[in-house]
């Protein structure tokens, strides 16, 4: 067996693959947070719970309605996004005139409610979710085996991330969005319905979390707590990348996943905290984040 730095290549590439998959979820989730933050100026603490909801919607569709993975992939983001639209319309919209920290507190409370409700209904243990039959099996890449589903996660999240980047940075809709981020009053004065745009943006960001949840369901187990600790890591990712740039969130998400995977190979004890340590270093060197602009 070949080795790199005394580590079997199989193990190394295996961990790197897991790292890339974690990175895919970091990228999708931090992207959603960044999009929401850009327009609403709040940090969506419910994001982890909404990711969990995505996984549960997929699980329930399969077990109650008999609708499989592909239907879930299509419909679950809409379901989760719709709950997001309700949250924005009924609650968040009342807080825009106040300090932004109230938005954080509100979404934290909502996360507690959602996670508590799911835990009452389904307990703390995870529920398995079948991988779609089209994506079972693996490819032999020569140096390692790539399970098809893992390859799919990395590819699909890259496509979703880049599509989001394209829409925001390169289309007319995106230009409205960016303009409203800079100066909502002026954009409103030009006859664009900014409140509607804010609602839909929140719905979209939340739908991204739901989509990530569906993709995560076959890899991790579907459990009420699946988003709770993840969201804290994603916050660190967001601090490291800075929320100023869409592409920045994507790159930071994937690379931190990779670094975490490498840490698991070379110094497993630190794999839980490596992202937080990187956050500390980035704060010391470039407080605004790697891609951020200090205001």
């Amino acid at each position, binding site marked *: 067996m070949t080795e790199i730095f005394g580590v079997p290549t199989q193990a190394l590439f295996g961990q790197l693959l897991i790292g890339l998959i974690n990175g895919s979820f970091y990228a999708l989730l931090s992207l959603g947070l960044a999009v929401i933050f850009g327009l609403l100026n709040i940090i969506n603490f419910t994001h982890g719970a909404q990711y969990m909801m995505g996984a549960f919607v997929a699980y329930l569709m399969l077990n109650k309605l008999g609708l499989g993975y592909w239907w879930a992939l299509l419909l679950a983001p809409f379901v989760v996004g719709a709950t997001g639209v309700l949250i924005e319309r009924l609650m968040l919209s009342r807080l825009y005139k106040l300090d932004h920290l*109230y938005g954080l507190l*509100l979404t934290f409370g909502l996360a507690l409610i959602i996670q*508590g409700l799911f835990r009452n209904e389904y307990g703390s243990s995870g529920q398995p979710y079948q991988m779609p039959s089209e994506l079972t099996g693996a490819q032999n890449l020569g140096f390692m085996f790539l399970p098809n589903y893992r390859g799919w996660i990395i590819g699909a999240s890259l496509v979703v991330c880049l599509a989001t980047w394209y829409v925001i940075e390169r289309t007319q809709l995106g230009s409205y969005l960016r303009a409203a981020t800079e100066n909502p009053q002026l954009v409103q004065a030009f006859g664009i319905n900014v409140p509607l745009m804010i609602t839909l943006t929140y719905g979209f960001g939340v739908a991204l979390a739901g989509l990530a949840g569906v993709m995560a369901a076959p890899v991790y187990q579907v459990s009420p707590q699946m988003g709770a600790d993840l969201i804290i890591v994603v916050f660190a990712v967001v601090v490291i990348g800075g929320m100023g740039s869409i592409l920045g969130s994507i790159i930071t998400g994937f690379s931190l996943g990779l670094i975490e995977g490498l840490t698991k190979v070379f110094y497993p004890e630190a794999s*839980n905290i490596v992202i937080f340590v990187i956050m500390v270093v980035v704060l010391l060197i470039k407080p*605004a984040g790697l891609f951020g602009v200090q205001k």
Partner: protein
Amino acid sequence: MNVPGSTVASPAASAATTPTDAASDLRAQRVAFAAMVAIVVLAPLVVYPVFMMKVMCFALFACAFNLLIGFGGLLSFGHAMFLGSAGYASAHAAKVWGLTPELAILFGTAVATGLAVLTGLLAIRRQGIYFAMITLALAQMVFFVALQSKFTGGEDGIQGVPRGRLFGIVDLSQPMAMYTLVAVIFLAGFAFVWRVVRSPFGQVLKAIRENESRAISLGYDADRYKLVAFVISGAVAGLAGATKALVFQLASLTDVHWTMSGEVVLMTLLGGLGTIFGPVVGAAVIITAQNYLAQLGAWVTVVQGIIFVVCVLAFRRGIIGELGHWLKKRL
């Protein structure tokens, strides 16, 4: 991030004050403090001392947290790291090193203070929402260190911590002796935070909260004030945690977990952000509610979430803030 005029604290707190207002506020606060002392002294006649000690530890914790958000405008979402690390340190000192309780508590507080210096230096590099995320992430790092370290006992925590003899004389395994010690620590800690808020330092802190650029332009080194506030807050939270470890003879992961950071936010929000007595009332209400709701299991989280949402949407002044608004006094 600091929009001028936007305040996290109760709207009443930002109203202009004339000297007479301030004097009458202070009188009201003194009356409230006297009432609180009376309650602390008389409470063991009616309720379990251990319950009261728990309330006092959390009340002090919430006061420490409130100093930062209510008067400095800094929302820390990682205050559990001070409570928890001080608990571990004092438990370790009392159990393994065999220190007397007062030294164990001092050591725990010192460890939390050191941690506050380190984390504070990092966290104050960003403002607003980033500050909250950074403190949360740093606290999660402390949680993982506590989970994996040998001396914390991992999932088991440090159990069977001896209460020992205060100054080598007073046996703290006597419930009333322990109660008296906790009461003294709580009242002294509370009075200290109260004094800090009313000091010139506290005034500058409020000025920075209201308009940071203006305060800087007046020559105040805002970052230094924020750091000192953060360290004081962490130290007092540590004092609460170190005491709590001796009361329950236990230091565990619960106290470093992010849910604990959330709970202290909830207590302060419910009692009234930026009020003097709000955190105490909020802590008492939440701890009492937890006692009654304990058999509901996971519903406790749901109830806490609902209180959060209701407070943010409709009850932003909190209990004491509303009371003060009604009495036209700042409590």
